[in-house]
């Protein structure tokens, strides 16, 4: 049993950390957020050049064959820097889907680009009515002679506003699992995007598909066979998101702790007040729980699917959701007024952490999922 990173993993993490420290000051982040892309195109390019967008892919694709731990190393540091780049969406989730289900042509055409960072992909799996259930798909794909015709609506596609590729799930059969996956380019006729900023400083869009004709080659994996693939890759994305959250929580707690030491009220640092001390301890303790679950999630992220993997990932996302909210809310409270302001760093960590709970299922959603997998012992 050994919880230490090996030398390569440590080097990987240090590389990302250094990069983020150098390029991603708080002020710059605010600027990146206001650009059309909503992130730093330049930083994204650097990630690609350093091979970091290739981490989870095979060596043929220029990658490290990185597993959960390597992804965790990258994501934790991106989380600590509140980075806005679509690493999760493009590299982990979309890349993972094509990697798992795509045929050789699709891998050659798209995966290489995703791994090098030259292509940026997004996943369009949620719908207005779906809440967090990725099997709740009403968008339909009808087979015809030229391929498939898609109709429907996709909700909250983070990074979709400027993606080169969009992976869309659509119902191809009435069976609960009868879902298929299609890869679309945003210029496809009938695909419309409504772009918006998100409250945590990123950007995304809603997508309307009206009689969108795609060729049969746009189908990724088997027809009616996408449900399992999506579930598996969503699990990898959850593990990555947990790591991002842990990085953000670490930074958030450091800010709060600093503030407790420096801010004075009634003639003493506010960290002298026992209530604030104990609250800070609780926040550290929640972070420990989150860190443990991120480690555990990373350890199963690339394992074969099983109820045990499902349980661990649901548990991890549940813990991260709760601890993220606790650390955000209590951190704001401990900061007082300054924690409520745009111009101070903390609030942006809080917003990201709360929004992580709204991606890929919140703590309630995963608690329910875990409960449904509960075993009598």
């Amino acid at each position, binding site marked *: 049993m050994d919880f230490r990173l090996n030398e390569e993993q440590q080097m990987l993490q240090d590389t990302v950390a250094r990069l983020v420290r150098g390029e991603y000051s708080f002020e710059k982040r605010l600027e990146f957020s206001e650009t059309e892309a909503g992130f730093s195109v330049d930083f994204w390019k650097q990630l690609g050049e350093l091979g970091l967008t290739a981490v989870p892919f095979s060596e043929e694709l220029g990658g490290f064959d990185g597993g959960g731990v390597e992804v965790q190393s990258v994501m934790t540091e991106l989380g600590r820097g509140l980075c806005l780049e679509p690493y999760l969406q493009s590299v982990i989730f979309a890349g993972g889907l094509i990697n798992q289900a795509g045929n050789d042509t699709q891998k050659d055409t798209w995966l290489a680009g995703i791994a090098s960072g030259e292509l940026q992909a997004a996943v369009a799996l949620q719908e207005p*009515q779906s*809440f967090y259930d990725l099997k*709740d798909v009403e968008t339909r794909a009808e087979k015809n002679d030229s391929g498939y015709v898609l109709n429907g609506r996709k*909700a909250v596609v983070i990074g979709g506003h400027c993606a080169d590729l969009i992976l869309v799930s659509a119902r191809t059969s009435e069976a609960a699992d009868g879902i298929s996956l299609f890869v679309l380019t945003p210029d496809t006729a009938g695909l419309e995007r409504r772009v918006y*900023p998100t*409250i945590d400083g990123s950007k995304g869009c809603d997508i309307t598909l009206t009689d969108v004709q795609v060729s049969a080659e746009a189908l990724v994996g088997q027809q009616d066979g996408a449900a399992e693939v999506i579930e598996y890759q969503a699990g990898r994305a959850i593990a990555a998101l947990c790591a991002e959250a842990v990085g953000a929580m670490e930074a958030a707690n450091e800010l709060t702790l600093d503030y407790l030491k420096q801010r*004075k009220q*009634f003639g003493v640092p506010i960290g002298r007040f026992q209530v604030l001390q104990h609250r800070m301890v609780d926040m550290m303790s929640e972070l420990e729980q989150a860190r443990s679950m991120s480690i555990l999630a990373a350890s199963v992220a690339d394992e074969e699917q099983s109820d045990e993997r499902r349980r661990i990932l649901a548990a991890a996302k549940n813990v991260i959701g709760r601890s993220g909210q606790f650390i955000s809310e209590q951190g704001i409270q401990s900061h007082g007024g300054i924690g409520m302001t745009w111009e101070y760093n903390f609030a942006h960590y809080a917003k990201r952490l*709360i929004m992580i709970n709204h991606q890929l299922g919140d703590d309630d959603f995963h608690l329910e999922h875990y409960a449904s997998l509960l075993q009598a012992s």
Partner: protein
Amino acid sequence: MNLNYTEEELAFRDEVRAFLDKKLPADIAAKVKGFRRLSKEDHQRWQKILSEQGWYATHWPVEHGGVEWSPVQKHIWDEESSRYGVPRSIPFGVNMVAPVIIRFGNEEQKQTYLPRILSGEDWWCQGYSEPGAGSDLASLKTRAVREGDHYIVNGQKTWTTLGQHANMIFCLVRTNTEVKAQEGISFLLIDMDTPGITVRPIITLEGEHEVNEVFFEDVKVPVENLVGEEDKGWTYAKYLLTYERTGLAGIGLSKAALSHLKELASRRLKNGRPLLEDPTFSQRIAEVEIDLTAAGISNLRIIASVEGGGVPGAESSMLKVKGTEIRQAINDLARRAIGPYALPFVEEELELDYDGEFLSDENAAPLSAQYFNNRKLSIFGGSNEIQKNIVSKMILGL
């Protein structure tokens, strides 16, 4: 024991309802109920209607143009206001500086300022907090030095709510540095147009401009703008704080927010069913509704006791804490109810006259922003920690 209203109180409630049915502008009510942005003009328009009805200054004696409602009448007004979507009154003039002027000001100040508050001519803001003096208000540093007929004011105030609209500010300033912190403070009324005053917006975490910093650089304030005696400002401020605490629990606002939440939960789906029918979510709503019911009765008990001549004590501080926790819990649930739609933040959707396409649910737009913004409830108006300190002093005697 009788939990019902008297005949007179019921009649008053009918009067309030009739008035609101007739006079509350529909566009304003729609903004309030949909948590949309209210403009300065909205506030002024509504204040004018209230003033004409004679119901604007509910805390003032009749001789100054007030209406002197009983605590129960005020409660009825609050309840109905929340239900109808009446804009929250901006308290700085009518409910904050005015009571101080009435109690401690001189005749000239009363003659000058009270009518202008009633008419809406003046928009007041509050200059209390400073960057180094939040919960520890008495440590404030803004200096006022007497020079002839003027005070020369230098310093900085912060968290000045809606200061961008105001033409007047009431300030706590330090006039004496030789004595204990609380004893060297004075209460000054300052015209915001005086040279040397700069207002700088503070953008809150969700992106709104509601609060400000106000900088004073050699600002000349006529001595007749001093309220009461020099160095006695802390006494007036404390009077005001007691005044302020009742109502901070925001029971009526929580009721309105809960009603909005339930309406939302009856439409938003989870597993193809409305959230209101989901076992988990409905229980979460149930719990907060139950807590609010209890807090509502606690509020009535305080009101009835004040009506009977009592003075609200530890209970009102405890209720401030409980009430803000409840409202934050409702905001949390509302954000949870919209699931992935918590992420998009289209600022323009906060305007009632927004004519773009709404995201999945037109009522979803303000909910994340509101959740973040209302984290302030447990910080401002005396943080919940400070409230608990006060209560523990009262009950522990330590």
